[in-house]
């Protein structure tokens, strides 16, 4: 039932309703609204009950195992939320930050510096609101760098075919043509294809390492050499930093520009689709191009660099200083982890992934790259099942929901047919992994013996399989009262 169906004319959450105010004579009548917006008219209890009950229809980390590959669904510590929500932080106006928000700025400055250390870059800006915006900022800096050298011929961005869709989309937004690079049979970038692709038109290459295929590209140094030699720059998509934090640094691998997803590696909440934060880091030569704001310490006072101090900056990417509340959560998280804790993130996310991979293979699942170690995530393919039993990866995923487990990422990367990209993260226990393995084996069994049960899943959720074709063909995107 929609909240609109609970609406009754004249009802209101009265504790929120200010006293009646007449229209102001100062606002010309022709600028006024004639009919009120069709917002619901409900009591406070109606609203609380409606949205509380809706929340219960979600699977979430707080309630379920959520091995959604490439999304790093780990525990979001309650302390991060609580402490970032202290009135002192919440009540600060963005335009009062320097005057009255020194506590906030101190945290942001320290976060900036810690991320610099973790990534091995020369400078970091926290401005970007999400990973994709970080990518755009990175691409824009690459462009600005080449142009600053008077090199306007570099119009092409290389992107491996396994990359997140945001990579090519961001490159396009940044004004580049995208050229895809093939993947070899080990899941690495195909070096021969790369060799062929680079040239004076190459602005750079956008890479995730470990890649979205769940493996670490062993030829990263060779890739860096080839691209750098051609005059291009290396862009690092930090989506998978969780696998290597404290072990290898993008800066040390030869990357010139990076972005991070704080809502992945640094455990800020996903919130049903954001807000995230996508800080960017750069090598020395790109420092002048960093997006604003960048926070600096003048003695004990913190302030934001002005445009005149950073004249070559690509500019601002968001209205104010970025998703500050998210940045505070990441700051708190890193402070709780400390150095040793951060290293263990990579170790245990990798241990969990490799253990899970091994056990699934033992239970009859087919890995995409049997010859490779898993990074913090890995791919299995259900193509045999699809062929023999007509049970697809989607069917299998839906059946997992019935068992109280969120499904892994399906059909991504597109290179691998009927694939599951599985990322358990380090915060899940062996018992949870073992229970998941049992469920996977049970569904495999079901797929063999009663495939229709799997194909018609889910059976125990608030809704059964939804008609997505109808949703797209006859878009119903907003309620209209009759």
């Amino acid at each position, binding site marked *: 039932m929609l909240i609109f169906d609970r609406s009754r004319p004249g009802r209101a959450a009265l504790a929120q309703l200010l006293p009646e105010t007449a229209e102001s004579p100062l606002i010309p009548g022709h*600028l006024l609204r004639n009919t009120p917006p069709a917002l619901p008219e409900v009591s406070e209890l109606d609203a609380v009950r409606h949205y509380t009950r809706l929340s219960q229809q*979600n699977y979430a980390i707080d309630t379920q195992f959520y091995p959604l590959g490439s999304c790093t669904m780990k525990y979001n510590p309650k302390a991060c939320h609580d402490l970032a929500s202290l009135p002192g932080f919440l009540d600060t*106006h963005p335009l009062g930050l320097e005057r009255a928000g020194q506590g906030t700025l101190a945290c942001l400055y320290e976060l900036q510096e810690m991320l610099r250390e973790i990534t091995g870059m020369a400078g970091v800006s926290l401005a970007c609101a999400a990973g994709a915006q970080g990518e755009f900022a990175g691409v824009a800096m690459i462009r600005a760098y080449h142009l600053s050298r008077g090199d306007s011929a570099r119009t092409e961005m290389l992107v491996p075919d396994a990359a997140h869709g945001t990579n090519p989309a961001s490159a396009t937004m940044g004004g580049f043509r995208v050229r895809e690079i093939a993947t070899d049979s080990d899941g690495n970038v195909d070096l021969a294809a790369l060799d062929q692709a680079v040239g004076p038109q190459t602005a750079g290459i956008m890479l995730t390492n470990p890649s979205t295929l769940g493996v670490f590209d062993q030829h990263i140094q060779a890739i860096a050499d080839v691209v750098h030699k051609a005059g291009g720059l290396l862009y690092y998509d930090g989506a998978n930093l969780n696998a290597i934090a404290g072990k290898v640094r993008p800066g040390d691998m030869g990357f010139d520009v990076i972005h991070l997803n704080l809502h992945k590696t640094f455990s800020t909440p996903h919130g049903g689709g954001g807000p995230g934060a996508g800080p960017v880091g750069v090598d020395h030569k790109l420092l002048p191009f960093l997006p604003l704001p960048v926070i600096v310490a003048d003695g004990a006072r913190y302030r934001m660099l002005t445009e005149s101090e950073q004249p070559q900056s690509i500019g601002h990417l968001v209205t104010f200083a970025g998703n500050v509340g998210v940045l505070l959560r990441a700051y708190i998280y890193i402070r709780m982890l400390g150095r040793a804790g951060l290293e263990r993130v990579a170790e245990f996310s990798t241990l969990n992934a490799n253990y899970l991979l091994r056990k699934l293979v033992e239970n009859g699942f087919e890995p995409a790259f049997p010859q490779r170690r898993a990074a913090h995530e890995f791919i299995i393919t259900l193509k045999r099942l699809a062929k023999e039993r007509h049970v697809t990866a989607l069917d299998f995923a839906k059946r997992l929901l019935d068992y109280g487990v969120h499904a892994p990422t399906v059909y991504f990367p597109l290179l691998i047919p009927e694939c599951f990209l599985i990322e358990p993260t380090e915060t899940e226990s062996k018992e949870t992994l073992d229970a998941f393995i049992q469920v996977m084996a049970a569904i495999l069994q079901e797929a063999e013996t009663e495939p229709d049960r799997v194909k018609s899943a889910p059976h125990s959720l608030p809704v059964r399989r939804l008609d997505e074709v109808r949703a797209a063909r006859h878009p119903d995107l907003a309620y209209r009262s009759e």
Partner: protein
Amino acid sequence: MPFIPHTEDDIREMLAALGTASIGVLFDEIPASLRCRPLDLPPALKEMEVARLMHARAGQNRPLLCFAGAGAYEHHVPAAVWAVAGRGEFYSAYTPYQAEASQGTLHVLYEYQSMMASLTALDVSNASLYDGATSLAEAVLMAVRTNRKSHSRRILMPKTVHPFYRRVVETIVGSQALELIELPYDLETGRIDPAALETHSGTDVAALVIPQINFFGVLEAVDELTDWAAANGAIAIALVNPMALAVLKPPGEWGREGADIACGDGQPLGIPLSGGGPYFGFMCCRKAHLHQLPGRLVGRTVDVDGKPGFTLTLQAREQHIRRGRATSNICTNQGLMVTAATIYMALLGPEGLRRVALQSHRNTVSLMQGLAGIEGVDRVFAGPFFHEAVIRTRRPAREIMDGLAERGILGGYELTREYPELGEAILVCVTETRTREDIESYLCEIASLLGHD
């Protein structure tokens, strides 16, 4: 290491299953030469310690009585908003890719889209963008994609648009060979200069941005501007404050045909100031432009039993399907903020929202009336204002702002950098959260700073 559950036994058993001697071995595909030295990070703090630290940091933020707006507004946020939006099931869920296991979030997003469409009087809304400035950048890009009548990539961007928004648009569209043409304002009214606009009549313009309320707090002549855009084959992009739309004419009804796209920042709808973010951007448009709308969309459909349900839809526009040809690169957006805004709008309702907007307006009127009686401070523009207005002070704006801050007041936003032509100007905002006493206090302190003791 605080959030890793593995016991020594677990590690032993897992390594045994893998047949490896140590966890380190699992990293053996990484070239040794790349392995880094131990990171130079502070040691781990226990939650107890970090709590003490963060309380101290929050305490270093000085609470100022807020008279600043300029894109971020202190409205009262009902306790129920975050009590519910902060529930683990909303907070710790991902983007609702598995619709059946995410009906909570999807249902909320559908309601959000419905509310925004209604507020703007347009057909559809996406499920959010990052913030107001990026929403305007996306709107500009969308307008260029959408406008089949125009072959130019010229955008008319009034100077009455928030300067922070304009700089973000420049950054984002800068690489795409768009031309942003600044439209000057009338120094008398504080509105877009109609004469300046007229000089573009008959030229090929892809879009006109129409801010309502404009950056100076002044109400623009939106009907005429929208009609101008329609007459000149330009897409009319409404940049609006969603709170004010409870009172002001919605973009869909501007002029004869309405604006084509509405965008803006949703922060006034239940989102705390929080030093600048996270807020959320919104974007609405007519059905005809639906396939050029960036960002996620939630649709209502039915399940195999015919039961209504919700799902992400029209994903073919998005980057994970269309990759380099997507309508935008946006992926993660501001889902949780939109959840809060939905609850906020449900709690306020049409009348509640209207009263918040009107009370803010009336409070601003009160302040301006009070200031009118103080020598050395003047209102700059004659145009009708909503809940912000520009004042000019006899003393330098910076000194006034510093003086007010010393007295516990955030006095507004200085315009001297972005609008030096206005002299010692400050943009002041009064929302419904300011009491009569607060306003008195502002008047009293500014009078004192201007030498009226």
